């Protein structure tokens, strides 16, 4: 549920109202009214601490606080401009009103305006000028109390908003709304439910009291300052009577001077109580208490100046009036609700209620939340970040361009090697151009390269195309590894003869009389072999030595890994005992075991 808070800060007193709900239906969750500490050693910080305590006690929603300041601070002027556009008015209002405010330097005041009437393209404005110094002081006090108000306005407008929202100001008549403040009184004329004029009377309920000075310091000689005797009750009563009489005279002036279309039906008074005012008449116009809380707010015993500062817990014992849209429950002021009207009006506006939209937080005083305070540095940092990232992008892009150029050189060089330069008659090394490869080579050799791929990807694509064409060619040539080729009998025979040549000294002179080398396909787990059947003579000085030679031949071959088996059917001595003859010797070779692998020489 939405919560808002309205605070009236006067020169000596304050009121605080916390609302809960919406603009149309809400209740008072808490309120407090009291005097700001004064007369101590550091009245500013004491007042801030006092408000801080109140804010904490009542759980004030610090992000939704509206503040009303003393109307007596402001000067009011009526201005008529020949246009209706608010933005346009904002642009010119300060210059238009400058000549009418000779008492102020225009740069030292906040200028605000309320449109009182719009007709025939012309706007009647009620211009408010408030010294920035006074507004800053109120803001500083609240900031020290831990509150950053969203908006500042005058007591007069807060009171008018509360009254209009409560239905006090009807469309058929006019009213004089009066808020009696500490040292000034706000007078608002509402005509037909619309704001007509505002006036500040520099007389307040506490005007008879002298301003409170800070605590007197000790004298030079260390003696405490002498106590000043205060006025007697009779003297005070006399001053109050004088004050009321002066105020009545001012109200008579206001009633008589009000230019309203409708008759003024009543004077409604709120704020601090002055005896003898409510219930009387001003120029035959009755004076009533301004009660925006309806009748269900029953006054409770206690003095008005000692308003209880209790938190209002909702709905248990309180009254609720849903018909008028203003629902509120206890706690309630110890005596009367009149002091709370302004604070209530300020709080109501924070909930979206109220018809007047004054704004005194302007220019350097404009609302700056936590983010607002840092948004300018953040914006600058953001721009700096974007700039840095932009530079980083440019830098990285340039570095990448250089590397990309290097890649292009490599790829272009390889492509040039394959394609050559037909224009200059240089033949490429890809002697048999293949369309798919050739086309792509032309693409990658161009400066732009393949638009769909990076240089590296282009390199991969080129590799893939070459490999594919190579694979196709090898398949066409029957070189693909999916068929095991038969063993070569030529290779087997060459290996045997190479062995004999290499071991000529061990096996002596050999004469081959017949050779039959055949490839035998393996069956089952039996491997492919080459079977060599041969007739050979081993020449030597004797049959014995010839036999030795043959045995060395046989033993040597058996030691070779590729010689699986040797079958022989004995030897015959050569004529004249010059060696031995081996007929039908079978050598079974497994060429898969040869360290030479495939191929013969």
């Amino acid at each position, binding site marked *: 549920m939405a919560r808002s808070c309205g605070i009236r800060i006067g020169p000596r007193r304050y009121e605080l109202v916390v609302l809960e709900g919406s603009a149309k239906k809400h209740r008072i969750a808490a309120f407090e009214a009291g005097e700001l500490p004064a007369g101590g050693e550091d009245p500013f910080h004491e007042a801030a601490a006092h408000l801080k305590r109140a804010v904490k006690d009542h759980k004030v929603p610090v992000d939704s606080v509206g503040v009303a300041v003393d109307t007596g601070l402001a000067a009011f002027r009526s201005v008529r401009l020949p246009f209706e556009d608010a933005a346009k008015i904002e642009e010119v209002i300060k210059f238009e009103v400058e000549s009418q405010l000779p008492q102020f330097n225009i740069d030292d005041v906040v200028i605000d305006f309320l449109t009182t009437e719009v007709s025939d393209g012309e706007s009647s404005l009620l211009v408010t000028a408030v010294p920035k110094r006074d507004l800053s002081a109120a803001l500083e006090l609240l900031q020290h109390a831990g509150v950053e108000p969203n908006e500042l306005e005058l007591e007069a407008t807060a009171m008018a908003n509360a009254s209009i929202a409560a239905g006090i100001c009807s469309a058929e008549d006019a009213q004089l709304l009066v808020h009696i403040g500490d040292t000034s009184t706000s007078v608002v004329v509402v005509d037909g439910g619309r704001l007509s004029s505002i006036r500040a009377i520099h007389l307040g309920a506490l005007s008879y009291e002298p301003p409170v000075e800070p605590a007197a310091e000790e004298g030079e000689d260390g003696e405490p300052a002498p106590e000043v005797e205060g006025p007697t009750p009779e003297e005070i009563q006399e001053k109050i009577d004088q004050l009321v009489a002066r105020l009545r005279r001012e109200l008579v002036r206001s009633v008589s001077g009000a230019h309203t279309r409708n008759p003024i039906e009543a004077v409604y008074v709120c704020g601090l109580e002055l005896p003898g005012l409510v219930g009387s008449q001003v120029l035959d116009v009755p004076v009533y208490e301004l009660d925006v809380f309806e009748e269900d707010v029953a006054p409770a015993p206690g003095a008005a100046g000692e308003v209880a500062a209790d938190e209002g817990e909702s709905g248990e014992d309180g009254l609720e009036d849903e018909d008028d849209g203003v629902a509120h429950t206890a706690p309630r002021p110890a005596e009367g609700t009149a002091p709370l009207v302004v604070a209530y009006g300020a709080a109501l506006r924070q909930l979206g209620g109220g018809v007047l939209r004054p704004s005194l937080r302007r220019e350097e005083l404009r609302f700056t939340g936590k983010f607002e305070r840092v948004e300018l540095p*953040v914006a600058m940092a953001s721009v700096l970040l974007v700039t840095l990232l932009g530079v980083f992008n440019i830098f990285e892009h340039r570095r990448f361009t250089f590397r990309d150029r290097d890649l292009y050189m*490599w790829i272009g060089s390889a492509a040039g090697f394959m394609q050559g330069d037909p224009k200059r008659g240089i033949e490429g090394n890809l002697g*048999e151009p293949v369309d798919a490869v050739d086309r792509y080579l032309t693409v990658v050799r161009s400066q732009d390269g393949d638009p769909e791929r990076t240089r590296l990807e282009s*390199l991969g694509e080129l590799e893939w195309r070459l490999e594919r064409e190579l694979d196709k060619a090898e398949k066409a*040539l029957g070189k693909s590894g999916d068929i095991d080729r038969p063993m070569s009998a030529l290779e087997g025979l060459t290996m045997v003869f190479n062995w004999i040549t290499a071991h000529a000294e061990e096996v002596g002179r050999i004469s081959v009389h017949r050779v039959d080398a*055949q*490839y035998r396909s393996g069956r089952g787990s039996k491997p492919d072999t080459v079977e060599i059947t041969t007739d050979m003579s081993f020449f030597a000085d004797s049959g014995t030595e010839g036999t030795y030679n043959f045995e060395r031949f046989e033993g040597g071959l058996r030691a070779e890994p590729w010689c699986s088996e040797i079958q022989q059917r004995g030897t015959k001595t050569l004529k004249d005992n010059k060696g031995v003859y081996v007929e039908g010797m079978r050598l079974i070779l497994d060429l898969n075991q040869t360290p030479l692998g495939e191929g013969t020489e």
Partner: protein
Amino acid sequence: MKLFSHLNFARMIVGLSLVGSCVLGYTGWQWRQKRMEAEAALERDVPLRAQQLQVTSRRLTRELRELNRFDFENGVMQPESFIRSIAAQPQIALGQIDISRRETPAGKGVQDVEYTVQSQIKRAEPRTKIANFMYRIEEQSRGLMRVTGILLKPAQKKLEPEDVPVDNWTYDIKITMRRKEEA
């Protein structure tokens, strides 16, 4: 939402800068990745891959040339013509030869086509010629044809065991070309 309801120049700058920063950060990071990838590739892979491309292109050229010259399956050259062309080469010159052809299955879906080469007139040839013939068959067919049977008999009649035969031989050479069975 309050932030955007009070949009001012600074907030607009912040918002736009944040969006811009995200975009620029992403693109910058991508450029950086690409650049680092390119640098790493240039340092390690690209020179080797470029060289390998050249090697592959040469290999492809060789294979394509061979395919153009020696494509049995596509009928560029018939195996028997190839064998005869080898036999007729100057250093070989085996003269008139007979070639017989036989097809035998060599496993599932694989077929051996065997060509048996003999001298038509049983003429004996020097061992070097016959060896050259067999070597060229295997070498120039780039392993597609294998010499799978060699029967060499000396031309000399009535050769005794202690005789050293003259280096002339009659030959009976079996050449096998293994291929997939046609569907």
